[in-house]
């Protein structure tokens, strides 16, 4: 069974601070996705990364895929209360199979 680990499990910061959360596996991903989930809602896709070393930016969010395609990071600049939520990474090890989700990082941004 391929497992995804995410760290930290919980993170509470003040508005305006920067933060980075991590996702890693012992196996090589064919692709990896990041989602954000708010209470009472389903996860919402933020980004998909496929190429090792790839960096994608979405406003204040920067996603990086490791060169070896075994890990990824999500960096948020100048966090805002609206960034609060559960951040999930999901990895696919073989194309065409279902994505396996990590346990998530629960982020709380305090005003």
């Amino acid at each position, binding site marked *: 069974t391929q497992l995804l680990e995410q760290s930290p499990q919980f993170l509470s910061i003040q508005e305006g601070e920067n933060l980075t959360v991590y996702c890693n596996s012992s196996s090589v991903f064919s692709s990896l996705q990041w989602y954000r989930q708010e209470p009472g809602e389903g*996860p919402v896709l933020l980004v*998909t990364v496929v190429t090792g070393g790839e960096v994608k930016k979405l406003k204040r969010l920067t996603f990086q895929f490791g060169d070896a395609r075994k890990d990824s990071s999500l960096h948020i600049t100048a966090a805002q209360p609206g960034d609060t939520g559960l951040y999930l990474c999901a990895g696919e090890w073989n194309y065409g*199979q*279902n994505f396996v989700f990590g346990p998530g990082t629960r982020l709380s941004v305090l005003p």
Partner: protein
Amino acid sequence: GAGVSQSPSNKVTEKGKDVELRCDPISGHTALYWYRQSLGQGLEFLIYFQGNSAPDKSGLPSDRFSAERTGGSVSTLTIQRTQQEDSAVYLCASSPRDIDGYTFGSGTRLTVV
């Protein structure tokens, strides 16, 4: 429709009863997935439908769980003889192809009492 629709949004059932959860995917999406999320946890894969292919049932936790997808569109997840450990949010997602990002519904919160 504009998004993935799940019904009911909440379901409370007595232990031992059967329940059916419904998912209406985005029109034209060929891939449909069911996941389960326990309180404060990540998502646990249950079952995956892709077009007319045989579904991947490898995530179903027991033979009390089954799912169908009729006409390549609507899907129903059935849990027979519910147990308290079945309490969770059941999430459905669809995607245009199996390598695209998922669009999730808001889930069905199942409580077995």
